[in-house]
């Protein structure tokens, strides 16, 4: 057994509802996701001996709320991809014998902000000194900045960018849980209001409340749970920059590339082996950067690849089949939902099921191209 082999996702579930949930605190969303995932695995909370979640509310709070006394803790909080890193770290811990059954939780009152911590950048931090004074205001003003450079270097058009939202809405239309399901055209996207040029409203993700959780354990126990096991075949993680202005090359994500390379190597797969793909889409350009970083297209060609229909229903590479952050849900840390859809597709229980995929790849982003995680998940042990 090398790498992440020998570890499975035994339970996976989201909160009962997603969207606007002012009756749920952040902690409640964690708890509801956790209970649903543990039940999905056919386990009880007493079976959980490891806990992982992001720093607010944090693993101590979540474990305590659930009555869990863990013997392994991971509080890695590096943005929306953190949950992919938790799976990777849990796999290592399980192989090392530090934990047997790890619970990974996400909950975020991203829209209603109930029991949520306030986001504030210290004026003496590097970003507080060298970015905040210029009027940046969250991801719409930072995550978006690299794209004009990419458009100039590679000729990506406004219409191709808009098509990312069109393609994902076609998946969302098949998914009763998606926030936005009505079809949109390129013209509709380009007619939506400009949030931060060159980005229109429909090229920016939703902001919602919701949560979800995973139960990760040893593959030796596959078959003893309520649902088919999903095997963790490969994992990768990396970081590049805490400030978007310091991203080395605005036309590519080094963190995406490094995390992807590690995960594909560990799983011993190439892009041709991938049946289903999830790429974190806080904004419409992120799937373009992701496809290129993982090697699904050559540099500069992912926009045309999507606009040619390859990633939408009926295409050769089903991408963001839940509708993605653009149409399904986006609590602020979307990575958990990307993993959930990969698991559903491999189990054959997705709303927009794409046949019987053997391999699903999940690429998570954290911050503004700051961090990345990649999971290669499989129906078989590999």
């Amino acid at each position: 057994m090398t790498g992440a082999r020998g570890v499975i996702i035994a339970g996976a579930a989201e909160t009962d509802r997603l969207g606007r949930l002012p009756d749920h605190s952040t902690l409640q969303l964690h708890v509801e996701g956790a209970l649903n995932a543990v039940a999905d695995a056919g386990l009880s909370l007493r079976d959980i001996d490891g806990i992982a979640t992001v720093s607010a509310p944090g693993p101590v709070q979540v474990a305590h709320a659930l009555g869990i006394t863990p013997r392994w803790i991971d509080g890695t909080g590096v943005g929306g991809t953190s949950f992919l890193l938790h799976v990777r770290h849990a796999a290592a811990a399980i192989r090392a014998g530090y934990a047997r059954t790890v619970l990974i939780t996400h909950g975020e009152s991203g829209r209603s902000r109930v029991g949520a911590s306030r986001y504030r950048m210290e004026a003496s931090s590097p970003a507080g000194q060298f970015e905040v004074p210029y009027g940046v205001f969250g991801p719409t003003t930072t995550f978006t900045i690299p794209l004009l450079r990419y458009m100039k270097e590679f000729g990506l058009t406004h219409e191709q960018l808009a098509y990312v939202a069109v393609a994902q809405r076609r998946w969302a239309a098949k998914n009763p849980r998606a926030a936005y399901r009505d079809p949109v055209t390129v013209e509709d996207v380009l007619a939506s209001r400009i949030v931060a040029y060159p980005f229109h409203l429909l090229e920016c993700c939703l902001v919602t409340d919701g949560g979800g959780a995973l139960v990760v354990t040893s593959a030796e126990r596959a078959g003893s749970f309520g649902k088919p096991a999903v095997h963790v075949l490969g994992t990768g993680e990396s970081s590049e920059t805490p400030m978007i202005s310091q991203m080395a090359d605005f036309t590519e994500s080094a963190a995406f590339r490094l995390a992807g390379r590690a995960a594909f190597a560990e799983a011993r797969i190439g892009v041709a082996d991938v049946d289903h793909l999830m790429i974190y889409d806080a904004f419409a350009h992120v799937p373009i950067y992701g496809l290129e970083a993982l090697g699904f297209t050559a540099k500069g060609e992912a926009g045309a690849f999507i606009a040619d229909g390859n990633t939408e229903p009926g295409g050769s590479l089903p991408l963001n089949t839940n509708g993605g952050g653009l149409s399904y849900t986006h609590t602020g840390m979307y990575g958990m939902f990307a993993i959930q859809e990969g698991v559903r597709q491999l189990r054959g229980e997705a709303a927009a099921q794409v046949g019987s995929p053997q391999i699903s790849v999940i690429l998570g982003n954290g911050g503004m191209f700051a961090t990345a995680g990649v999971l290669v998940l499989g129906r078989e042990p590999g």
Partner: protein
Amino acid sequence: MTGKPVPVPTPETQPFWDGCAAGELRIQRCADCGRPYFYPRPVCPACGSRNVEWFTASGRATLYSYVITHRPAPGFEDDAPYAIAVVELDEGPRMMTSIAGLPATPEALELDMPLLVRFERRGDVSLPVFGPLEPER
């Protein structure tokens, strides 16, 4: 209305802000490998050397990328829509900045156009912003 955010210098960034107050864009370079870098920190990100020094950059740059935000940050309500830009200094490093003296439109802001630093007062500090080479008349 909240005022615009004012940066608070730290010991390793103070020389940068002192330079801005004197009307100079002072950044660092490695005395061993020679590479200039930004943002201020006490170690060369290229080679790991602690043998780093301050120097005054030319203040010349080109426009590397930007957005024009229609949703203002607190304190910027009167400015929207406004550009948030990243410029590439002639010496190589890049920094975030505002664009002064040009309309915040895609037509006026062409990537790779030459720009020159100038300084705007913000609270206790002078903030480097960039505008056209020819000062506006």
